[in-house]
Each structure stands twice: as C-alpha cells, then as structure tokens.
C-alpha cells in the first residue's frame, strides 16, 4: 500500500519535473526519470527507499529529512498564542507543557542516554526555582541571570548526587536518587534560608511600549520565552547526542568496560551527564519561578520526581521530540480535565492509567508512535513536495547557487554523468567507491571525499575553512610537542593518508568492494607484504608491552603467578594456555581491568601498573573482549564511531554549540569509520543494529572498532572463541592483515593451531604459571606445552620422544 502511494506520488512529481529543468541537476530526485515509465519509477523509488534505509542511521541525514517537519512544528509553535481557540487557560497549559518538556529533556539526557535512572529530578528543579528566587530578591539579578543562577545550582546539586552515587548504577542508583529526592523534599526545601524567597517580584525588562519589552506576567511573553528555552535545549542536546560526547553517553549505557577500553573516562563522562541534566532541570525550575513568581514545596516532592520520570518514559525516554510530545500530552490532559468539570476529579487517576497504558502498549513511548507514523508520511514528502519546493528554496541558499540558465559547473556535470551511466542516484555508496575522483573536493588543501554531508553543513564547513585551518595548524604544533613526549597521536587516524595510491591496503580496499567472501579470499591470495619477524631481532625492536613478574590474586586464589612477557613493535605475539590457565587475567592486568598484587606492567616504556583503563587506552592500546562488548543501542556504524573518541579533538562545548572544529572532527571521524568499514568489507551491515547480527560478524565489528581507534597496539582476547574453522581461518588472515597496517598485536587464544599459524613469538601459561616461550616452531615441539595440552607430565613426553 505504502509503496503504491509512493509510486503514484513519484509519478505526479516526475511529470512536474518536466517543467522544472533544475531538477535534473539535483542528484537525488531528478536523474532523467521524467519519462513517466511507472516501472522505472517504481524501481527508482525502491532504490531510494533502500538507500534511505541504509543511511537512516546517519544523524546528519536524519536531521535533513526531518527539517521540513521541524519547520512546520516551528510555525505552529510561533502562531499558537494567536489562534482563536487559544484562551488564557490554554496558553497557561502551553506554558506548562514547555516546562514539562524541559524537565523531560533533562531526564532523557541522563536516564535515556547514559542509562542512569533518576527518581530525583524534582530536587534539581526545586533548587533551581528557589535559587532563582534568591538571586532575584537577595542578589538583585534580573532575568535571565537569576534563572542562570538556578541552573548553575541545579548543576551543582546534580553533580553532588552524581559524585556520591558514582560507584553504583542501575537500580542502586535509582534508590539513591529516590532517597535524595525524599531528603531534598523533607529537609532541604524546609530550610528557611533557601525558601524564604519562594515568592518574588520580577521586574519587567524594558519599558511598556518600548522594544524589547518583556513582561513576565504576560502569559504570551512567557510562552515565547519558555518555548525558546525548550527549543535551544533541544537543539543543543541533539547536537551533543550526535557527536563525540553523546556517543560516549550511549557507549557507557551499553558497556562501561568497552567504553573505558576506548579511552572514555567513564566517571568524568557520567559526571558531565549529571551536570548537564542538572543544568537543564535547574533551568526548568528557574523558568517555573519566572513564570509563576511563586512556588510551593508540593511542586518538588518525591511524587513529582516520579511524575517527571513518567513524562520522559511516555515520551520514549531516549527521544527529545518524544519528551516534548509527552510534555504537551500531559499538559493537554490537564486542560481537558480542567475543561470538563464532571471528570475533573479523575485527572490523577487517568494520568496514572495513561502512563500504564502507554508503557504497556507502546514501550517505545510517543517517540515510537511518531516514528511509525512518520515512516508512512516521509515517502510522500520526499517525492512529492521536494521537486517543487526544493529548487526554489535551494536557489535562495548561497551554497547551492546552481542556476539553470548558466551551464552547470564541471563537477556537477561529472557527477551527473556518473549517475546517468550507472543508472543510480549520485549518492549511492557504489558510485562513490567506483569513481572516487568524482566525489572529492579540495578542502583545506587536502583531498577528502564529500558525500554524506548535507549541503547546509558543507556550506558551513567551506565557510569556516580559514579559522579551522588556523586552528588545525595550532593544534599540529601542540601535537608535535606531545609526540616528543611519546604520547600516541590518535588524531593521525583521522587524517587522510598522505599518498593513498601507494599504500598496500588501498589495493586491498579496491578488491574488497566485490563481496565480503571474495574480499577475504583476496587476502589469502594476495601476498601481503607481511614477513614473519625473526625472534633473533627481537631485542632490536622497541618493546610496547613489558610485563614483569606480575602476580594476580583473587582472595586466596593466585590466578597468575610471576608472569613476564614482552611485545615488541610490529610483532604478533600469541599467549596461549588451556582453559583456566590465567590468560584472560594476565591480559586484563595489561589492559587495566585488574590490579596485580606484585610486578609491573609497562606500556610504551611507561609504568602503567596503577593506571585506570581509559588512560592506558590513551597511550595507544585497543582491545576486544572474549564476551563481545558492543553497544546494543547503536548500530554498527555508530559502534565504530564511538572508537574515534580519542582521535576526535572536539570538546563538550564544541559538540553542543556546533563549532566549526567539532563539525570538522565529526566529518573526519565518519570518514575514518567508512574507511575501516570498506577495509574490512562491512558495508552491508554498516547500518544494521548489532542485536540482529550473527556472532562471527560481531567479532569482526569489534575488531573493526579496535582498528578505528588508530591505536598502534591491539589486544585480542580469544577472538576465535565461538567461531567455526572457516571463520577462524579468516580471522587469522585478518590478524596478519591488520599487522600489515602497522599495528602490533597481542593475541590470546586457546586455539593453538591458529596462534602458531600467525604469531611471531609465543608465551604459554598453565595454571597461572608461565611454562614456555619462543617461536611457534619451538613451542610446538616444547614438551611442557604438549604436556599441558595433553595432560601428561613433561617427563612422560620426553620419555616417549
């Protein structure tokens, strides 16, 4: 049904395009399908849909698709106070909806994204409101500074809670926040010094009749104010979500271990989330005070905390538009019950019932309902509206100045040519990979692919080139300073290779395009420049990992006893041993997941024995996990994107306020991830949820994630466990391939065949004690090793030999 509607819509629009030649220039919608051939159109629509499905996970693309919908929403919000049915009472509810939306936004950030359940947000809202009162009355701060003071105190209180509750999570945190809210209500909000200004007189800004004139007692003025705040919060938080810090949030929610192994400072990031959430909640409290100019403790009790969480949950918990929708929903509910006196007394009952109903019928909340509905209308808007409106709008935009009267510039022409030859829309991945020269532009002197970014971002990027270049040069200098101190330059991973044609992996990358299987075959047939490193030259190479006499105890059990090893630059070192030999324990003490009782661990010559996980990652160590630790809320592409955390130089404010640097870093990060995806042939699964993928692919994704970090040292924890023989064989190829990219590898396995096949040097553990080391050939002949695996004592083996 949907497909037919789409086809018909496309048919009409295609007919319309004959009169608008400009459409032919537009890569996505035009492309010569204006002959009215329904079969071709249907095919085209199917292609577009598939393409969109492939790219729907890309936040940049997503934001573009919804841009029109956002314009409509914005228009509705702007004219709402002037509509005939908008009475004084309705306007009041609209303001309430804004307040709810703001509070729900705070909860979405903390609970939805970072997974830190909060049953205590009423406390932050309350402190925001009371401090706003104090700021206004006692400190003489006018709006908006009084509300800012409230927001800052909200952030402080939330950080305080975050700090004391940092070591717990999940339900324990829920209890802690519940108690916190309960205490705030019973103790904090009973304190005279805090609540004595619970009723304020807010001076209007400006003079009546003058401009600007903000009279806060006017509901209409307040309406625009609160919705502007909501809008700003949504914009900044969306921007945050789709960049480095937001991804770190989702990573922490998915797996704290994996997040830390990618260099994310879990503790600090959680605190940041608490602070951001507290800021928004405090601001909401301030706006509450500004709106009503009087507050009571009832508004901030424990019950309200639960209600606020209910709003966020009804909205879908991870979705910002959902939070706004839920705010409007609950405020509208109140208005309905206010209007119909006969049911007015049942408001509480019905709200509780609706919460239950929404939760049970639509666990994804209003956001899920909206998505289901949106999928049906998006086709229509894309195919029907766009060809008519698009060109007109686009002509007005400075960075899309293609005029139909002028000949199209060479670049566009070439793209169009490609599209026509292949019969595909220009934006298909296929076209770009086949003809890279058609899809690159000069940015900042370096060659970069240009697809993926929508024109509006492209325009911004090109305008911001000069300052970015200055900034980059500046940072380059900083980097050189740091390099001299032996710190790994992760940002290098984000820089395009200097001479791409000469790199061996480029050759492989071309071969990879055919097919996943063929690509792996290609590795086997392609003689990679990957000679075994002779053990005799070991001492000449720089050691990256040095483990010296490490002892790890768990209570009375000594899991690893006096273990020493060395991994030198460029090597593949295997660590094997039967199950329970202490392999993973040794591995974890290198990666920082346990602390040895004795001995030292050095990475890159630096003693890191007591370093936390994320700092070790910062030195340049990437790892995979025996039990796969991917981030279940993110798709494959975003999982890999999290790994650019260390390379991405943008900070919190850059992410939130969309500075040129952060855009540029985001762009580079995405390029890096696409590069690795192409390298490993993961294109087909790039936008699939990790929950749907088979185990073997997930292994590959985890290795890809480690590769994306750009760390020169990769530690693989039993990568072959759970793989069949063919997959193990491929994995061995992959390991050698990764080494050929210049990555040193430490491999932990119990599959002896695989390890002896790829390693340059091996260590063997048995029952927590190192029993042998040497080249694979030596290890294969070593009687102690044979005994450990076959269960005979070394003497028996020697005798039989």
């Amino acid at each position, binding site marked *: 049904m949907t497909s037919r509607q789409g086809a018909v819509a496309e048919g009409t629009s295609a007919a319309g395009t004959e009169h608008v030649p400009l459409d032919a220039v537009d890569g996505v919608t035009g492309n010569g399908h204006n002959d009215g051939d329904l079969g071709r159109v249907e095919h085209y629509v199917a292609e577009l849909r598939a393409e969109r499905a492939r790219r729907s996970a890309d936040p940049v693309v997503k934001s573009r698709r919804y841009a029109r919908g956002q314009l409509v929403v914005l228009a509705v919000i702007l004219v709402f106070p002037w509509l005939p049915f908008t009475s004084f009472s309705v306007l009041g509810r609209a303001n309430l909806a804004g307040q709810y939306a703001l509070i729900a936004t705070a909860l979405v950030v903390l609970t939805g994204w970072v997974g830190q359940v909060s049953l205590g947000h009423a406390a932050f809202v309350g402190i925001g409101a009371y401090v706003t009162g104090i700021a206004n009355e006692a400190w003489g701060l006018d709006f908006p500074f009084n509300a800012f003071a409230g927001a800052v105190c909200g952030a402080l209180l939330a950080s305080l809670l975050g700090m004391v509750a940092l*070591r717990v999570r999940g339900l324990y945190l829920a209890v802690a926040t519940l108690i916190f809210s309960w205490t705030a209500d*019973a103790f904090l909000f009973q304190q005279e010094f805090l609540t004595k200004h619970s009723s304020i007189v807010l001076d209007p800004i400006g003079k009546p009749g003058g401009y600007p004139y903000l009279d806060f007692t006017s509901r209409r003025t307040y309406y625009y104010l609160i919705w502007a705040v909501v809008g700003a919060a949504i914009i900044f938080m969306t921007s945050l979500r789709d960049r480095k810090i937001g991804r770190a949030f989702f990573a922490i929610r998915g797996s704290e271990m994996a997040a830390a192994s990618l260099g994310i400072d879990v503790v600090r990031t959680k605190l940041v989330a608490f602070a951001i959430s507290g800021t928004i909640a405090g601001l909401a409290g301030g706006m509450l005070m500004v709106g009503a100019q009087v507050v009571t403790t009832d508004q901030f009790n424990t019950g309200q905390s639960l209600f606020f969480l209910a709003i966020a949950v009804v909205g879908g918990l991870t979705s910002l538009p959902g939070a706004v929708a839920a705010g409007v929903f609950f405020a509208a509910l109140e208005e309905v019950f206010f209007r119909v006196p006969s049911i007015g007394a049942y408001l509480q*009952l019905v709200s*509780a019932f609706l919460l239950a109903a929404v939760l049970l019928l639509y666990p994804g909340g209003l956001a899920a309902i909206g998505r289901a509905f949106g999928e049906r209308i998006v086709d229509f808007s894309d195919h029907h509206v766009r060809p008519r409106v698009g060109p007109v709008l686009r002509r007005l935009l400075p960075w899309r100045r293609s005029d139909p009267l002028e000949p199209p510039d060479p670049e566009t022409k070439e793209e169009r040519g490609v599209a026509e030859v292949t019969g595909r829309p220009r934006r298909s991945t296929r076209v770009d990979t086949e003809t890279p020269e058609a899809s690159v532009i000069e940015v900042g002197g370096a060659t970069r692919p240009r697809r993926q970014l929508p024109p509006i971002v492209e325009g911004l990027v090109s305008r911001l080139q000069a300052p970015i270049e200055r900034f980059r040069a500046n940072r380059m200098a900083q980097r050189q300073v740091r390099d001299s101190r032996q710190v790994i330059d992760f940002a290098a991973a984000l820089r395009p290779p200097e001479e791409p044609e000469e790199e061996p992996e480029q050759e492989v990358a071309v071969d990879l395009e055919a097919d996943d299987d063929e690509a792996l075959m290609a590795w086997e047939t392609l003689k990679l420049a990957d000679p075994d490193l002779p053990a005799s030259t070991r001492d000449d190479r720089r050691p990256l990992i040095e483990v010296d006499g490490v002892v790890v105890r768990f209570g009375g059990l000594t899991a690893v006893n006096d273990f020493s090893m060395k991994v030198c630059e460029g090597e593949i070192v295997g660590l094997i041993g039967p199950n329970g030999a202490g392999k993973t324990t040794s591995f974890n003490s290198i990666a920082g997941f346990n602390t040895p009782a004795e001995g030292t661990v050095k990475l890159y010559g630096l003693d890191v024995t007591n370093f936390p996980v994320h700092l070790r990652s910062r030195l340049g160590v990437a790892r995979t996990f025996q039990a796969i630790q991917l981030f279940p809320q993110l798709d494959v592409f975003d999982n890999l994107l999290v790994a650019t955390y260390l390379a991405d130089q943008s900070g919190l404010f850059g992410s939130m306020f969309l500075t040129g640097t952060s855009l540029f870093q985001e762009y580079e990060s995405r390029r890096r991830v696409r590069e690795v995806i192409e390298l490993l042939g993961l294109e087909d699964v790039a936008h699939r949820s990790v929950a749907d993928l088979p185990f073997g692919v997930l292994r590959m994704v985890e290795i890809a994630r480690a590769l994306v970090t750009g760390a020169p040292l990769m530690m693989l924890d039993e990568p072959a466990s759970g793989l069949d023989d063919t997959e193990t064989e491929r994995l061995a190829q992959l390991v050698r391939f990764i080494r050929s990219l210049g990555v040193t590898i430490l491999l932990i396995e119990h599959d002896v065949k695989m390890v002896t096949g790829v390693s340059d040097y091996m260590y063997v553990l048995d029952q927590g004690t190192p029993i042998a080391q040497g080249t694979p050939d030596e290890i294969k002949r070593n009687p102690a090793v044979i005994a450990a695996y076959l269960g005979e004592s070394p003497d028996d083996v020697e005798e039989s030999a």
Partner: protein
Amino acid sequence: MEAITSILLSMPLVGAYAIFGLGIVVIYQASRVLNLAHGGQAMFSAYAYFSMTNWGIPPIIAFVLGIAFGGALGYLVERFFVRPLRPVSQTAQTVGTVAALGLFIAVASRLWGTGGERIPGIFPAGAIDIGSTQISYAEIGVFVVMLGVSAALFVFLKFTDYGLAMRGTADNRTAAGLMGVDPDLATSAAWVLGGASAALAGILLGAATSIHPTTLSLQAIPAFVAALIGGMGSMPGVLVGSLIVGIAQGLAPVLPFTEDIEGGPQLILAAITFMVMGSRGETIVAAGDVRAGSL
C-alpha cells in the same frame, strides 16, 4: 536514657522496615526488579482491611483476607505492570512499578479520600510503660511479627525447593526453565509472597499509626535503604539494614546534630544511603550485577 527509650520506641519501625525490606528483596531476587509500588501495595491492602472491618468482618479474619488481598495485588502488579515490560529493559520494568504506584495512590484517593484513617488493630489495646513514655502492644506486635515472618521466609527461601527455584529463576530464566522450573510461575510466586508481606507490614504499621494514601506509600522508602544495606540479597542483611535505618530514624529527634533540624530523619537516612553506596559500590559491580546493556 533518652537514647535507649528512643531506640526501644523505634523497634516497631525496625519491624515494619524489615517486613517491607524482606518483600522487596524477595521480589528483587526473583525478578531483578525494584518494586517501587511496594508501599502502594501496602497502603492499598491496609485500606482494603479498613473497608472489610467497616463491613463488620472481625479484624482477625479481615487481617487474613487483607494479606491474601495483598498477595493478589502483588500478582496483578507483576502480571500487568512488570511482565509485559520484561522484553524492554530493567528500567522499563521498574518504571512499570512506578505506574502501578501512581495508580494505587490515585485509586485509593478516589475510593477513600485523602483524609487518612485510623484502623483497628489485631492486637489488644494497651501499652507498656518504659521510662517516661509508653509503647503499645500494637507496636510490639509489629516487631514480634517481623521476627516470625523473617524466620519463616528465611527457611522457605533457603531450605525448600520453591525457594531454590525462585532464586534460580532470578539468575537465569532460561536455565531454570530447562531444569523444569516454570520461570513465570516462580516469579509470580515471589510477587505474591512480596505482596502479602507488604500487606502485612501495611496493616500492622497502619494499626500502630494511621493510614493515608501518600504517606503510607512513601513509608516504604527507608525499607529500600534497609534492603540496599543488606545488598538486596541476604535476609540477615535486610534485618541488619532495618535495625540501622529504623534506629537512625528513631534517634534523629534526640541526636544533638539533628534534633532541631526539620527533616532530620531523612537527612540521616540519606547520609547512611550514600555511605553504603560509597563502601559497597565496588563489590556490587564486581559481583557481576551489571551486564552489558542490562538497562
């Protein structure tokens, strides 16, 4: 002396928190859900008991019926607010209990008003003099019943196959199912048990003080702390936790730091909570409580 009296006076609170806490732990052990509706269930059952005594049913029979009613409530909460959300996430299940709590408070406010009620007790009226004050039989009753209930629960969970089935189900539903345990049945049984104990605590506490839709629902909050101190897992842990929480609450009005502070009990409770969090945090994590994407 004053302090000792306060401690003695806080024994009923200790008893109530322990019964609440045991119910919370039983439910948590069986389904890994924090039942925030626990206080709501207690409140609702206490009101049901109140109505039954109003209809002329003798208190002792109404008491038994009220506990049965509490068990039924526990089953319904699990069946309609928690089980449907199991595929979504743990958070969603906990929020489901928030919805149930809201519904209980709302319905109770509609049915019985928000004025609060006094309900008849099952223990004889009267009191024992201790020092300058008195402690009623109803209050002593709460403590005694708590001892009995915790002993019974302990034996049930530790030494019977049903208890084993419940604990096994919490750890791994699939594996428990393969061992012949019906995981849904085991979970339901735990919720019935938890609901019944909530009703017990609600009625006893209500008889010793009074009942009110919101107040009684929130009286379970310290019990969460008690359960937390016990690590959400061990029965003796809950008892120790209840002792700490109950006595701290009872002492707040006489302690030098907190006697003049409004909300002193809550402040002490918060301090205890965060101290427990700080000291236990690592062990909680190390115990493998947190799995990837469990929230």
